[in-house]
C-alpha cells in the first residue's frame, strides 16, 4: 500500500495516524492471518488434501455450508418481513422490538447456545412439543421415500441434532438482513409506489415489480453477511448441535478438535479453506454494495 499524499494538507497528524494504523493493523490482523497461510504452505500437497478433504472434514463442510445457507435463506425471508413491519407499520412496542433485533449481536454466543438448547431440548418450552412432531414427520418422510434417507439429512431430534445447528445459525444471522434492508426501505420514495398504483398496478404487482427489485441488492447483501457469519459461528452451535462426527459436527468445531489433538497443520489447513471462503464472500458483499450504490445513484 502506498502512502503518498496526493495533496498537502494543513491538518496535522497524517503521518502519525496512518503509521499507527498500519502498524497496529499489521501486527494485530495481517501478520497473524499470514501465519495461517505460511503454516499451510509448509505442508505437502498430499498432506494438505488429506487434511482438508478427509470424509469427516467433507461432512462438516456439507453441514456448515448447508445449514448456514438454509439459515441465511430463512433469515432473508423473515428478515424482509421484520424490516417491512418495522419501517412501514406502527404498533405498540415497536421501538422495543426494533432494539431487540440486535440481541444476537450483543448476547454472548455461549449464552445464546445454552439458552437455545434449554428451549429446544426435548424437555424445553418448544422442543417439548416440537420434537415428537418433528420425529414423527421425519419418520413418515423416511417411510414414504426410503431411498432419500431423510433422517440422515434432517435428524430425528431438534436439539443435539442437525435442526439445532440450523436454529443456532438462524439466531446469530438474524440481524443482518433486517439491518441492511431497513435503511433502504426507509429511503424508498413513496412516490414509486404511488406511480405504480396510478398506472393501474395492484398492490401485489407494485410489491413484486417495483418494491422488491429495489430491495434486491440489499437483500442479497444481507443474505451474504448472514451466511458468512453463520459459516464461522462456533459458540452458539456447539451446545445445541450434539457434535456427532460425520453428522452434526460443524467445521469450526473440527478445527478446535484438531487443535486439541495437537494437529496444528490439520487445523490450519481447514482454517485456510474457511478463510478463503469468507474472503470470497466478503469480496462478493463489497462488489454488491458498490454495484447497488452505482445502480441507485439518481
Amino acid at each position, binding site marked *: 500500500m502506498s502512502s503518498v499524499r496526493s495533496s498537502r494538507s494543513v491538518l496535522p497528524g497524517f503521518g502519525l495516524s496512518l503509521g499507527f494504523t498500519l502498524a497496529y493493523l499489521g501486527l494485530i*490482523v495481517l501478520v497473524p492471518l499470514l501465519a495461517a497461510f505460511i503454516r499451510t504452505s509448509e505442508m505437502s500437497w498430499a498432506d494438505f488434501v488429506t487434511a482438508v478433504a478427509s470424509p469427516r472434514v467433507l461432512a462438516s463442510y456439507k453441514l456448515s455450508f448447508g445449514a448456514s445457507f438454509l439459515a441465511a435463506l430463512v433469515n432473508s425471508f423473515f428478515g424482509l*418481513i421484520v424490516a417491512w413491519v418495522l419501517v412501514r407499520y406502527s404498533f405498540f412496542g415497536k421501538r422495543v422490538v426494533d432494539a*431487540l433485533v440486535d440481541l444476537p449481536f450483543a448476547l454472548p454466543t455461549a449464552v445464546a447456545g445454552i439458552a437455545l438448547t434449554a428451549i429446544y431440548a426435548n424437555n424445553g418450552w418448544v422442543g417439548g412439543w416440537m420434537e415428537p412432531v418433528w420425529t414423527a414427520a421425519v419418520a413418515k418422510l423416511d417411510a414414504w421415500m426410503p431411498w432419500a434417507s431423510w433422517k440422515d439429512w434432517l435428524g430425528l431430534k431438534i436439539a443435539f441434532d442437525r435442526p439445532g445447528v440450523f436454529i443456532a445459525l438462524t439466531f446469530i444471522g438474524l440481524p443482518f438482513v433486517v439491518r441492511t434492508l431497513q435503511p433502504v426501505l426507509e429511503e424508498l420514495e413513496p412516490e414509486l*409506489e404511488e406511480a405504480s398504483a396510478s398506472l393501474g398496478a395492484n398492490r401485489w404487482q407494485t410489491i413484486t415489480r417495483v418494491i422488491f427489485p429495489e430491495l434486491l441488492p440489499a437483500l442479497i447483501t444481507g443474505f451474504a453477511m448472514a451466511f*458468512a457469519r453463520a459459516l464461522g459461528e462456533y459458540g452458539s452451535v456447539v451446545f445445541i448441535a450434539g457434535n456427532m462426527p460425520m453428522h452434526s459436527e460443524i467445521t469450526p468445531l473440527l478445527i478446535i478438535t484438531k487443535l486439541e489433538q495437537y494437529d*496444528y497443520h490439520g*487445523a490450519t489447513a481447514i482454517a485456510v479453506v474457511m478463510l478463503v471462503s469468507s474472503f470470497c464472500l466478503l469480496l462478493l458483499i463489497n462488489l454488491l454494495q458498490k454495484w447497488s450504490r452505482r445502480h441507485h445513484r439518481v
Partner: protein
Amino acid sequence: MATTVTHLKAQLGAAAPASRATQDAPWVRWSLIGVALVFLGFFLVLPLAAVFTEALRKGIALYFQSFTDADTLAAVRLTFLTAAIAVPANVVFGVAAAWCITKFNFKGKSLLITLIDLPFAVSPVISGLIYVLVFGLQGWLGPYLDAGTHPWLGDWLNQQDIKVIFAVPGIVLATIFVTFPFVARELIPLMQAQGTDEEYAAITLGASGWQTFRRVTLPNIKWGLFYGVILCNARAMGEFGAVSVVSGHIRGETNTMPLQVEILYNEYNFVAAFAVSSLLAMLAMVTLVLKSLIEWRYAQSRATHD
C-alpha cells in the same frame, strides 16, 4: 452511525400519514406484524427469557450463591480486565484510523478500509488459532518464549513469567482481534459525512493540531465514539470462540465469563451456568438500551439542527 440517521427518518416518516396508494390492507398489515413477532418471539424473546428462568429455577438463594464461587469471581475479574485493555486499545486505533482515512487523501484508502473490516469475516475459532500459530509453543515466536532455544531471552521471559498462549496476554490479543473494527467502522462514515471544514476553520483561527482534535473533532464524534465503544465492549466481554482457543481453560486463571459458563454447563451445574449467563444477558440488554438511547439522541440532535 448510518443507521441512526435512517432511524430518525423512520420516526419522522411515521408522523406523516401514508397515502391510500401506499397502504396495505389491515389484514395484510396485522398478519405481517404477527408473523414478524412470532418469528422474533421464538428466536429472540424465548432465549432471553430462558436464561433468567433457568437461572432462577432453584430459587433466588441458589442463584446468588453461584456468584460466591471463587473461580466464577476470577472469571468476572478476568473479563473486566480483558475489556479494560482491549476496548481502549481499539478506541485509540479507531480514532487514528478514522482520522487518517477521513481527513486526508492517499492511495490505497479503500483497501485499508476493507482490511479494517477483515476480522469480521474471520471465524472466531480461526481468530484464536492464528494467535496460537504465532505465539504457541510450535509457533513462530513460541521458541523464543520457551526457555532453552535462546537462553538469554527465554530465561528473561521465564523469570518474568511471561506466557502468551494459555495465558491472559493471549486472551487479550484474541479479544482485540475480534473487536478490532467496531470503533473504526462507526467513526469512519460519521467523520466522512462531517468533512474537514470545521478542522480547517480551527487551524486558520490558530488552534494547534491537538486543540483542533480535542475541541472541534471530538465533540462532533463523541456519540459515534460512544456507540462504537459499547458495541466493542459487549463483544469483548462476550467473546467465546476465539478466547476458548487461546485460553487453555485453567480454572480461576484463564477463564473468562463465557468460558466459565461452558465449564459449569458441561459439569451439569445448570443453575450456576445460567446465573453467570444472566449477568452477560443483562450486559447485552444494557448495551441494547444504550444503543437505542444514542440513536434516539442522535436523531433528536439531527432534527433540531436541520
